[in-house]
């Protein structure tokens, strides 16, 4: 007998007490919790996102569509970045004002090559206001998961239409067949006497640009 059959057999014997007509999933799981905590306008939701991102030490900038290219150029320059990773589908206009060397997100590039790049600029799929989270789903304007991981500086552009109030709304918008990365503030650890330290393995600096 294979281990698969052995384990499934053990599970079935262990559940002999469960009646055949046990309550089905839809009725067994009460969903009496809230879809979102409080009622907010779109502007208030943006404010909450900014506040919660900042609370976890992300650096938040706000601008409009016209100011975006200037903001991105300014952030790269303030950082002293000499190279920036660019996902294949990133809006060209976002980088129109910067002269920093662009590095393409290529399947062949090795982790060591990524490690030599200073910054990365991406879009996101969804942002969650209540938790201060941005979610990347690997779409062409976000690139492979590793490009937002290995460089030490991540600039993420969030447009107003991508902001949802809460986790339930975010899951609804996301496609589980894509690899997802949920980011709430920069890399951090609290393993040493529970003192929070930012930047262990992921980017030590996360800058979020809210547009709109």
């Amino acid at each position, binding site marked *: 007998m294979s281990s698969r059959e052995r384990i499934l057999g*053990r599970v079935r014997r262990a559940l002999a007490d469960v009646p055949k007509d046990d*309550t089905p999933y839809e009725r067994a799981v009460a969903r009496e919790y809230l879809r979102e905590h409080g009622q907010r306008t779109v502007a208030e939701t943006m404010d909450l996102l900014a506040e919660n991102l900042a609370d976890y030490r992300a650096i938040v900038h706000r601008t409009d569509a016209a100011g975006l290219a200037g903001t991105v150029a300014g952030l790269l320059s303030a950082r002293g970045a000499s190279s920036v990773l660019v996902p294949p589908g990133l809006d060209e206009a976002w980088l129109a004002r910067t002269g920093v060397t662009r590095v393409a997100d290529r399947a062949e590039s090795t982790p060591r090559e990524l490690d030599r790049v200073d910054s990365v600029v991406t879009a996101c799929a969804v942002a969650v206001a209540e938790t201060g989270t941005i979610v990347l789903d690997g779409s062409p304007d976000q690139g492979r998961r590793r490009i937002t991981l290995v460089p030490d500086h991540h600039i993420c552009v969030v447009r107003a239409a991508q902001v949802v109030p809460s986790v339930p709304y975010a899951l609804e918008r996301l496609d*589980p067949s*894509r690899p997802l990365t949920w980011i709430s503030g920069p*890399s951090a650890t609290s*393993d*040493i006497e529970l003192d929070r330290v930012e930047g262990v393995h*992921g980017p030590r600096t996360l800058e979020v640009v809210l547009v709109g």
Partner: protein
Amino acid sequence: MSGTFVGMPGFPAFPSAAREAVHDTTLRGNLRHATHTIRAKRAKAVAEVSDWAELREAGKRIKDHTLRHLDHYLVRLEESVTAAGGTVHWAADADEANRIVTGLVRETGESEVVKVKSMATQEIELNEALEAAGIHAYETDLAELIVQLGRDRPSHILVPAIHRNRGEIRDIFAREMGDWGRPAPEGLTDTPAGLAEAARLHLREKFLRAKVGVSGANFMVAETGTLVVVESEGNGRMCLTLPETLISVVGIEKIVPTWRDLEVFLQTLPRSSTAERMNPYTSTWTGTTDADGPRAFHLVLLDNGRTDTLADEVGRQALRCIRCSACLNVCPVYERAGGHAYGSVYPGPIGAILSPQLRGTASEIDASLPYASSLCGACYEVCPVAIDIPEVLVHLRERVVEGGEVTRGGNKVVLRPAKGHAAERAAMRAARWAFTRPGALRTGQRLASRTRRLHPRTLPGPGRAWSGTRDLPPVPAEPFRDWWQRTRGGNDVKGTAG
């Protein structure tokens, strides 16, 4: 379960391990600081959401429903993972899981793996099994790194090096890092930032060359075949995305039926564990994705005592656990005894009910774990999936003392009462005898009252262990029955109504 996994062999029973730990003032100081800090932060994070009770109830029900139909969801998960390009393996026990993982690593031709912190791989002692096969396993979570370099054992589910302070960590890094790869920087100080930077430099070398990653998972979604890992540092993201091969070892109880179910646990887990609205990084992946992340994905589904636990109608609720560790941080026993005293990778209140079920109660340590509690109930209060830990503790105590039918290795066996509880059983028998004979009880009580000045402060013989840590209750000057007779026995009209 196979006879080979006996947890941590040679470990003393909880009382003797705890007795040593409570005399270690550094350990007690480190633990008190950590548990009190996180306890307060957690309460604040939970208070932020007004529907905590409803989220907790939903989490409990999702997990209960899944467990009650686990065969269905396991098969569903296998289908969806396979359809997404992953390969599913089934491991009945620790030995089999270790054999599967070792074989998979060997097939890649590699001799080292990077690991995401995982309770399941600690439970099966995968690192040791890989080492025996000539494969080096590097722990990449900062706390796990501290434990590994210190040749130590984890003492907490969430912060495994909670028992170490910064000075101790500095010394371990300075002494050991060189033997494992890049040495600690010259002049390493004991600031958390300096220590984290040393870990970053030391581990980055390993991440960038790693070809095989090993992880566990916080959740597996049956409907979609998605695995979820929740973390803070980014070491998880490194291990899950940079290597060419990813092997995940996950307990069969970690399933949730649908993608939507994550909306409950992604709200309750971070707040309960690290007291954050959301942890810095959450990764989800479904099989493999072209040119993004590992090209090969293997999922090893681990039983190792879980089906035996499932067979116990009272004890099965322990499988709802999402490993948040909130119960450790509120437990007065854990706070004083520390995680090592539990002799198991699952310490604290949850460990006290999970370990004796996963491993059975045959060993001295496992038989003692249901007693490693004051039954104060704080663990039940904070549990985000409402596991009634005190209920299971009492149930397991009864099993230890009385024996009875249990499932071990998928088979029903009858346990004999554990040794060392003869006095307890004799006392219970004597009480039963006395309570069914009112005359004898009355005579005994009067005798006890009259001789109360002569009673010793501690009990002799087998009772010594009990009275060694407690004050004996004083015997009243007059038995209750006598007092009742004397004051209002038979004369109280209201009392006899009906």
